Every structure is written in C-alpha cells, then in structure tokens.
C-alpha cells in the first residue's frame, strides 16, 4: 500500500488552518454578517479638470454661512469688487458635514466651479492629500507660527490662514456662584471640547507633530479622571460645576445660556468656554451684557484657555482652477493687514497676522468705525459699538490662547487636531467612546481598548467590531 506523503499533507493542512485562523484580508471566510451585495470600488479622484467643466463668470469662493457680525465678510468682498474683477462668495448653508460634502464631491469629480475654498482647518489635510486643493506659492511669514502649521501638509503650504480660533473662557462678572457651560454635544465642537478637557488635565489621546500618534493609554489615570469627572471643572484656583445640558450643547446653545445667565432649568451660568467670535455677539448686546449705568463697562470678562485646540479657517485654491493668479491676489488681499483688522474689529473674526495683534497691543488699536472711513459714529445712537480698548484686551487673550503663556514654541500653545485625511472618521469614533464614557455607558476598559480603533480610523479604516 502506498504511504501518503505526510509532510505534504501537514504542509497543506497547516496552511489551510492558518488561512482560516488569520484575521482580516486574506484571512478566513467572512465571519460577520452575510452580505450578498458585491462591494463597489471608489471612483477615482479626478486629476484633471472635468471635460464638461463649468466655470463661473467670476472668481468663485466656496464657503459656509457668514457668521461674522453684521455679515461683515460680505462687506470685505464688496470692497474687493469695487477695485478688482468681481469675486463671488458661494455660501453653502447647512451643517459641517453638508458643507464639507458640498466642497469635496465636486472636487472628486474634477469640477472647476469653485476657485477658492474657505476650509475649516480640520479639513486641510484631507483636501490636500486627496488632491482636491493644490500647493500654493505664498510667503507665510507674518502669520502666527501656530496658524502657519495648520495650512502645511507634508511639508507644503496648501492654504493661507484666514481666521484664527482658539478657546477663550468667558466669565460673567454679575453672576456669582454660577456654573460652567461647555459644548460636549455630538458635533465637532464636542470633539474639540473633549480633547481640550483631557489634554488640559494631563491626559492623552493624540500626540506627535501632526497629532496623528494615538497616545490613548498613556497617563491613563488622568485621562479617565478627566472624563469621569467632567461635571466639575477647575478655573484658576476654583472648582466649578459644569451645567448638565453641556452634554448636548453646541456653541450657540452655550452662548444663549451664558447670555441669559442661566439655563432653561434655571441653573445659574457664570462661565463659558467658547470661540472669540462669541465676544462680539455678547458685547453688542448692551442691555444684558453691559452695565446700564456705564455702557462702556462690560458685564463679562474674557481670558485665554492655553493648551486648547486650534480652530479657524484657511483659504485654499482648488486643484482645477484656471484662475490661480487672481485667486492668489484675492487671498493676499483677504489676509492683508487692513482686511484682517476690519474683519476683527467689525466682524469678530480673530486675526491671523502678528501685525494686527501688535497693533492692538499698542497705539494702533482702532474700533470698527475708525477703521471704516465712511462709517462715522451716529450721534443719536446708543453707545453699543465695541471699543478699541475692548478689542485690545480681546486680541491679547486670543493671542495668548493661540501661542501659550510665553509665546509660541512652548508646550501650552493651542494644539492642532490630527492631520489626517480621515480626521472626520477619527473624530466621530473618539467622540462616540468619550461621550459614552461620560454618560457611563462605556466602561474604562472599553474606552482604552478603543486606541487601536482610533489608529485605524486615522487611516480611514472602519473597525468591524468597535469596542465602543
């Protein structure tokens, strides 16, 4: 009887079993679900303009809704159009996801409808690495160093900072023993607040130059304490309770509670974390936010929250534009000293240029009316305009929030969010786990087990069985 070739049998059998046991691609049959559907393949991202490219008549600038005070951003474009070939703002209403999708989808297809894009800083890596925008010839000196970093991707400059954002702490001076308003809802502001909360408590989520190293698990105790103890926040040497509704709030809802001095449930509110734009919205309300006897006296003060997360927007140029020179000219104008000072004083946008901060730190501080030659203060008006002194104080705190207590290159300058083209996936996964941990529906073990999922999310991968 012929003896079987046992080594060969062992070879094949072990190979088959190994194949079955190994996870992921090339490993074993599908173990979860029974999809009958044949997965589609992503459409390639266009590397050249679409053959049926529709170019607008004017230089077009895609952006979200205008949140500047009095829609002042449009005024800046009106000024530009008076002296140059027209540029048109294409305003996309809707939430963050809708705005991002409305800019990304045409770019993928090679559309050349938009020449310039005003991008949230969190999207720059995605738009650059996926080929929606192009590197631009621009000298970024003169911008705050921390902001320059937001526009650099893989060593190249893909945009020019347009508006800065760094967290500030607002405190009402007329509400004693009030609580703290945060934004921990299921939106991007929730991610930012959570990263700040954990980071300032000495915990870890991400690290590295581009914030793409997931360091969740280091300083585990501090990280967990920040999450599980979210209901109390330290400000100065005080420990202040956080309002319960913060778990669902965004920036606008926090602002409403702060302005009213109380929540809908009548909890007193004395503190708020928010962006610089909130200053204009508060200071322009003389009845509730200014002293009735002295209209020049605000009923709140503002200070930097060093070590927070950097926000803001960047002007980028579409890969498929045919108007690069005009686009660059517009970008230079919008990021010039005059436009930046006006956008700050009149619109509430935090400036990106060191020269503007320097001006507001010295004798160059001017209020909106003084900056706009044709807008004289009206003698019969109530004195509600934000004064140069108020703007100076605000500028100093914004700069401190961006650069840290002792200037840039220190450890407590504002941190960037992970520079990944899949940041949105990371943000959503992190927020889900962290909010679950705060609500008590995600255990400590499950939360820290999410580190691998976050690493994969930054590469764009979906974890089949997420720990939370």
């Amino acid at each position: 009887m012929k003896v079987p070739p046992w080594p060969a049998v062992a070879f094949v059998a072990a190979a088959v079993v190994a194949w079955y046991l190994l996870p992921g691609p090339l490993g074993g049959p599908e173990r979860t679900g029974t999809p009958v559907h044949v997965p589609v393949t992503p459409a390639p991202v266009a590397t050249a303009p679409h053959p049926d490219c529709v170019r607008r008549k004017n230089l077009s600038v895609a952006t979200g809704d205008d949140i500047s005070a009095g829609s002042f951003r449009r005024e800046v474009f009106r000024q530009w159009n008076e002296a140059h070939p027209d540029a048109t703002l294409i305003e996309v209403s809707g939430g963050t996801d809708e705005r991002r999708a409305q800019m990304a989808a045409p770019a993928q297809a090679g559309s050349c409808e938009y020449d310039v894009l005003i991008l949230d800083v969190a999207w720059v890596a995605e738009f650059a690495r996926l080929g929606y925008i192009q590197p631009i010839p621009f000298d970024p000196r003169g911008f705050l160093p921390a902001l320059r970093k937001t526009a650099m991707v893989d060593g190249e400059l893909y945009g020019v900072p347009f508006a800065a954002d760094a967290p500030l702490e607002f405190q009402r001076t007329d509400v004693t023993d009030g609580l703290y308003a945060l934004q921990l809802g299921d939106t991007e502001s929730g991610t930012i607040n959570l990263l700040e909360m954990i980071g300032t408590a000495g915990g870890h989520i991400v690290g590295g130059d581009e914030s793409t190293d997931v360091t969740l698990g280091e300083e585990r105790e501090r990280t967990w304490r920040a999450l599980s103890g979210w209901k109390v926040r330290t400000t100065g040497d005080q420990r202040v309770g956080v309002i319960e509704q913060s778990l669902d709030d965004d920036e606008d809802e926090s602002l409403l509670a702060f302005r009213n001095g109380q929540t809908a449930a009548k909890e007193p509110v004395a503190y708020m974390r928010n962006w610089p734009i909130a200053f204009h919205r508060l200071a322009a309300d003389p009845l509730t936010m200014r002293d009735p006897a002295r209209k020049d006296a605000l009923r709140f003060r503002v200070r930097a929250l060093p070590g927070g997360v950097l926000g803001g927007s960047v002007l980028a140029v579409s890969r498929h534009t045919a108007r690069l020179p005009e686009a660059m000219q517009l970008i230079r104008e919008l990021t010039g000293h005059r436009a930046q000072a006006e956008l700050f004083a009149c619109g509430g946008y935090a400036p990106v240029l060191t020269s503007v901060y320097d001006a507001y730190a010295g004798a160059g501080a001017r209020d909106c009316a003084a900056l706009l030659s044709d807008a004289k203060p009206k003698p019969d008006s109530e004195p509600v305009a934000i004064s140069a002194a108020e703007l100076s104080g605000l500028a100093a705190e914004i700069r401190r929030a961006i650069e840290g207590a002792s200037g840039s290159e220190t450890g407590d300058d504002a941190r960037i969010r992970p520079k990944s083209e899949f940041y949105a996936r990371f943000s959503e996964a992190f927020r889900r786990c962290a909010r679950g941990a705060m609500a008590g529906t995600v255990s400590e073990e499950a939360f820290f087990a999410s580190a691998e999922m976050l690493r994969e999310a930054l590469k764009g991968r979906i974890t089949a069985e997420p720990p939370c």
Partner: protein
Amino acid sequence: MPARNSPEGENSAEPAAKEGGPWASTTISVLGTYAFSTFTELFQPFPSPFRQILPLVIGTVIAVVVHELRKRISLVPPWPRIWTRISSFLVIVAWGAAGAGLVGLVWSVRQVVVDKPCRAATELRLVTAPENVLKLRERAEEYTRLNVGDGCAAVRLTVAPAPSVTDLIYGLDTGWERNDNREEYEPYVRLHGLQPDAWVATSTGEADYVRSQALRKDLLAPGGASVGREQLVLALLQPSAEALTLRLSDPEEHPLRQVWQTVGELGMSIARPFPETSSAALIGTSDLFAAFTSAAERKEVEQAMISGPLRTDTVPSLLCAFHGSRAKERVALLVPGHSVDDYNDGRVTEEDDAVGCPTGGQHGRAKLAGFRPAGASVLDYPFVKVNWPGQTTAERQAIVADFEKWLAGRPLYGDTTRDGVAPVHAEQLARTLGDLQDTLRPARDLHLVLDQSGSALGPVGTRVAEGLRGLSGVLGPRDGVRVSGLASRREHGSAELRPIADRRGRDKLDVLARKIEAAGFSGWDAPVSAALGAIPGNLAQGVIVLTDGRLFDDEGDDPAAALGAALEREPLVSGLQVLVLGQRPCAVTGLKGTAKPYSCLTAGDDLGEDLAKMIISSRGR
C-alpha cells in the same frame, strides 16, 4: 516490523507517521500557528503592523531552526530508533510550520502593503423631503457598511433635506442657487445646501412635475426605481380615532370627502403643512381637491386648512407643533404613513429638539393612529439621479446606480398601501399649485416693522434683508409686503414709524432688501404698541415686528395688556407676530384683552425660514 529497521526508514517520515500519526504532527503545527496568531496581545507595545507580523516571523524562525537542527546535529546511536521517530516527526512538523509560515508570510506582506491609508471614499450627496431624512440616513449608513473593502469604506453618503418643489425647480435651472431675488452686484450667492447626486422624491408625479417645469430637465435622469411605498394617512389621537370609527365604522372604506366631512362634524380640523413648501402636503391637498371638485368647495377646504391651528412648513415641524399643542384631540394630521410611527416612537420630536420642537408635550402617552382614506395617494418614492455638468463621471454614476438598486431591494418603507391606489399625476400637482396661487390663496398684505434702534444694528438689519430675499416661494402673486422702521429719537421719547419701503410684490423683494440695508439703524427703542396706531394704509394687514427683543422694555408695567389694547384699537391690523433676533427670549408670550392672533418666536439660524413660517402662519387670519 522490518520497515522500522530498514535504511530507508531513517530518511522517511513513514515510520513516525505510522506511530505518531500525521494528525499529531498536523495538530502541533496548527496549534503552534494558532498560538502565534494569538500572540498579538503580547506584542502590543510594538507599533502596527509589526505587532501582527512578529509572532508569525518568530513561528517561522522556530520551525526553520528545528529543521536545521535536525539536519546538522547527529545524535548518539544508543537511541537510533527513538531518533528516527523524532526526526521523522520533526520533518512533518517543519513542513507544517512551513505551510503555516508561507500563508503567514503572504498575509504579513499583504498587511504591510494594505496597511496604508484608505483611498478616498466616493462622496455622494442625497436629498429627500425632511420627513424621510432620518430613514434615508439609516439606509445610507447601512450601505456604507456593506461597501467596505480592507476596512476602507468605498462611499460616503451625506443626506440633507430637499428644498421645496418650487425651489428645487429653480435650483436645477441656476446651478443650485437659491432664489434670493438678488441684484447682480451682490458679492454672494447662497446654495440650497447639498447639491444632490440623487433626489428621493415623494412620488413619481412630483418628479414628473419637476421634470416638466425645469428648464434644465436634462439634469434629471429619466425613470428611477421606487425605493419605498406607502400612503398618505389621516392621523389622530386614539380617542379621536375611536370617535371617528364610531361614526364611520371603518374609515378606510370611506372616501376622503366623507372622512373630511365627518372629521368636521366631530369638531376636528385637518392639518397639513403648507403645500407650497411640503411635497407630501401638496399631494394631500391635490387628493382633497380631487374629492371636492367645485371651485367653491376647494376654496372652503383650503381656507379651513390654512386657518387651522397648526400652520407649519414641513411634516416634521407639523408633528412638532402637534406635539406641543394643547388641542391635540381636535386635530387630524394629513401626513405620510411612516410619520405616524416616527411620532409614536419619538423619532421626529427628539430629532427636532435641536430646532425648537416644544418640550413638555404629551409625547409618550399620546399615540397616533393612522387611517388610509379611500382616495389618499400612494407615495412611491422614486430615486431620481441628478447629473450636474462637470460633476458627473461614469464611475460616480455607477455607484449612484448601485445604491439605487440596493435601496430598491431594501426600501425606506415597506408597502402598506391599499389595493388599487395610485400615485398622483404631475398634471394634478400642477393644477393644484396653480389653483392655490392663482385663485385660492387670498391676497395678503404684510407690514414688516423693523426695530431700528442702534442696538438692533447687528442682529436685525442684514439678516432681515437676507431673509426677505428668499421669501418668494411663500408669497402669492397678489401678496404685498411693505417695510417700516420703529425707533425713538431720544431715550424714552415718542415712537416714530419711519417708512422704509412701499408695498412691493414677490418679484421685487430685492428692492425691499436693499432699502432695509440702506436704512441705517440709530436711535432708541420705542414701544410696539405705539407703532400699531401709526400703521398706514387702508387694507387689513398682518404686522410682523422684527426686533432684538428690547422693544418690549418700553411697554410699561404690563406689556401684555398694553399690546393687547393697542391691537384691539386698530381695525386694520389683523394680527401681530414678533420675531426676536439675537439671543434674547420672547418677553411677551401672550396678550391680554384681545382675541386677535398674536405670536412671538425667537429666530433660529435661518431667518428666511422663520419669516416664511410667520407668513404661512399669518395666512387665514
């Protein structure tokens, strides 16, 4: 056992195989491989992909070492038989390890190759009527999870509410720009949010109507699979439903006309959203117009609905208004069938909390029951692909088509229709819209009173102008709007109503907007009650006051009584609505001493939408 002592036996696996058996060797190899593959946990400190590769490399190395040892080490002869067995056994183990190692190696190489960032998922944009957004989002997430390769999603679907049918037609013709009645020189245009790659229409008739009206009808692909099928229903609270059943035994067996009349006899009214802004309501209105054929009857039906207690622009906002209403038992809702489940499960009301769904309603205790009256149209939800020039490629179209096919097999709503019912036709919808706008919609004169004090500069001026530009969809051809400013020249001085713009129709909204922008805001706050007495004109007008909220501060000790008395004094003012911009709440929520309609709202993010709701709400008053 001669074979064991034969010279060949020493170099062959056969003896060991016979004694130890191949299964032992294979089992050891397998267990070893399995152990290696589970070592990942022990290798946690190493970064990926080394964490996964390292155990396999070590496993392979051990197998090779064992194999090499066997070849190189010569064991002493006292145990030749044992050595023969061991060596044969080791050969098999080594081959097993090599097999496992080879697979592991290929797997590892692939891991290294694929462990790079995913490709860009294809971004697709979908719109549908607001009441379908939740369900379509669920399906989109399901489809995304199905289309994952190597852990990477192939698609990313974003779902947003579709604009009204009129705005959609306009948007197709203008590259998705809003109909803002803007002059050319303005430096901005606004889009209707997402510019869709596909639109899930409410019915085939609606899709055909859009195709027939749009100049760029070529942008819409013909046909489109049905991705849901249900009927419009009449939804009532359980006690009201029981009362209706007592009168009609089985309301579903009776025609819409009879159900309408019986609902009225029971002291209830039928509410639907504004048909110009809600496709489901337009279809429902069309069904009612089919049941009431004479012009007089239609006028009566429309008047009853437009003057009913719940006047809203979309199905979710109608459910929201119902949720917060104190007279739920006197209202029957004409809505898509799934909206009843959405309401009963708390989906719409919870979702809408963010946009002001009133809290404190009876949700959770008060459930709706839905009837499908004979004559209520089928909603068949056709999937309409939109091909924008310069934004469509064959690959993207293929994915959209794949999603359409998948969605048709996994529809938004399971078929709950009665036998023999059909979708509405495009011609019916066109007739209904024509009837509404040309004959049935009573002409409405509106007077916008702007708080012109200096404090209102930021919040009021620019936002009102912008919101006004987008209102043509809710104004009829005979409607008129005029604008005045209210302020006082000195603190606590007398109120002045300054004309800003004379009466203009819906095609001149930009003129009104520009006059508001040019008006300037200065002076001090003045009481609204004083303004009502100065309203010019000789036609009844609804007054809408837009303020930062401070106008109420000068109404004296009892603002509700002061405003109520002022409203009652003015016969030409048919009602008062106040929209508070900025962050202050409504200081006066109800009036005393008048039966005229009054409401006060705090504006949300989209002032145009808030103004549209107010105009809808002011109709029938």
